[in-house]
């Protein structure tokens, strides 16, 4: 049974057609890898699925029901990790994550969110002292802050070392095994076994 599908999606940016007639259908536990050269529309698709961009054409369906990506109920079922890490430089790692928990409507921050990417030691350090890779781990820790079925990850492994890349892959695998969905734009630094692949290689002339 299809959980999340897109039919005939088109995206226009600054008058230029980035992609059109894009389709996919995902069942619970599926991962979709977006591949393609820079500027081919991977990020645009993720932003469109998160509701940050409006599609020029096409339909999105969740459990067979069409919806607009801007709907609050859609926002409540997705995590989006984009290029920006969204850490406040003058707040500590823990304060940043506690804010995200509050923003998600949770009363408390789960300690597992700090442990997943080994941030417990850095918890009381202001984010401005973190390295790029550590900031990336903070951004990814948001996946653990609130449970949501749909993960939209835009080059999540940029700046991560091998250990943390494996942590990320394990986290995604566990999410998929629990029936979640994951759509990842990547240049091959994240490997997921059994993932569907959407290739943007020839989508743009």
């Amino acid at each position: 049974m299809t959980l999340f599908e897109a039919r005939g999606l088109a995206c226009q940016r600054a008058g230029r057609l980035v992609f059109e007639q894009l389709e996919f259908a995902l069942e619970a536990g599926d991962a979709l890898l977006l591949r393609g050269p820079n500027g081919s529309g991977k990020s645009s698709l993720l932003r469109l699925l998160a509701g940050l961009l409006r599609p020029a054409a096409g339909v999105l369906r969740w459990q067979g029901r069409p919806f607009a990506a801007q709907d609050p109920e859609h926002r409540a079922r997705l995590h989006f990790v984009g290029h920006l890490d969204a850490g406040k430089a003058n707040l500590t790692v823990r304060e940043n994550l506690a804010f995200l928990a509050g923003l998600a409507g949770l009363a408390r921050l789960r300690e597992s969110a700090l442990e997943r990417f080994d941030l417990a030691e850095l918890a009381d350090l202001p984010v401005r002292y973190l390295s790029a890779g550590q900031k990336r781990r903070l951004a990814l820790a948001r996946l653990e802050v609130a449970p949501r079925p749909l993960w939209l990850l835009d080059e999540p492994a940029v700046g991560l070392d091998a250990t943390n890349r494996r942590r990320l892959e394990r986290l995604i695998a566990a999410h998929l095994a629990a029936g979640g969905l994951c759509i990842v734009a990547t240049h091959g630094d994240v490997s997921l076994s059994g993932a569907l692949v959407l290739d943007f290689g020839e989508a743009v002339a």
Partner: protein
Amino acid sequence: MRPFLALLRRDLGLAFRHGAETLLGAIFFTLALSLFPLGVGASADILARIGAGVIWVLALFAVLLTLERLYQSDYEDGSLELMVLAPVPLELLVFAKCLAHWLTSGLLLVAMSPLLALLMALPAEAYWVLPAALLLGTPTLTLIGSIGAALLVGSRRGSALTALLVLPLYIPVLIFGVSAVDGYLMGLGGGAQMGILGAMLLFAMALAPPATAAALRVALE
């Protein structure tokens, strides 16, 4: 309600940690005002005559000075994306940000205004009239300014353009704010003007969050 409080707490915490930046508006307000007795002379008559107007104009600029930090840093570090994607209405979060901004800018001006009334040789009645008028007027300044700040988020030269965009919209607040204070000081009463200041605040509270939210969504596209 919890996302609202989480954002309010975060912004107040950040304002506390950026102490100097937060106090910028209030320091400018005091410093600029202290120049007036030096500039126009220490004649109590003249100072009392222009006092209310000068204090209101400077309050406008003090709020304007601090508007830039309202959305710009959230836009730059990506927090704004998280707010837009949070499963609560963006309008509610905008309101939380405006409240935090007012608590750390407008409210300071309100608290300092009796002292400044003294500096401008205003009659004793001004010690409560001026704070009361500013209490009704400064939140409106923050709310209107939030629309301008959101429209120009992400553009360089943002602050100068914000001033151009927002100052004309501040004129009604200025007119009724000054005439409320002057009315009381001249013994004519300023109840009607206070009422209009309150009405403008309610109007801004209803209108500014949706307008700001729409501008922020466009900024992220």
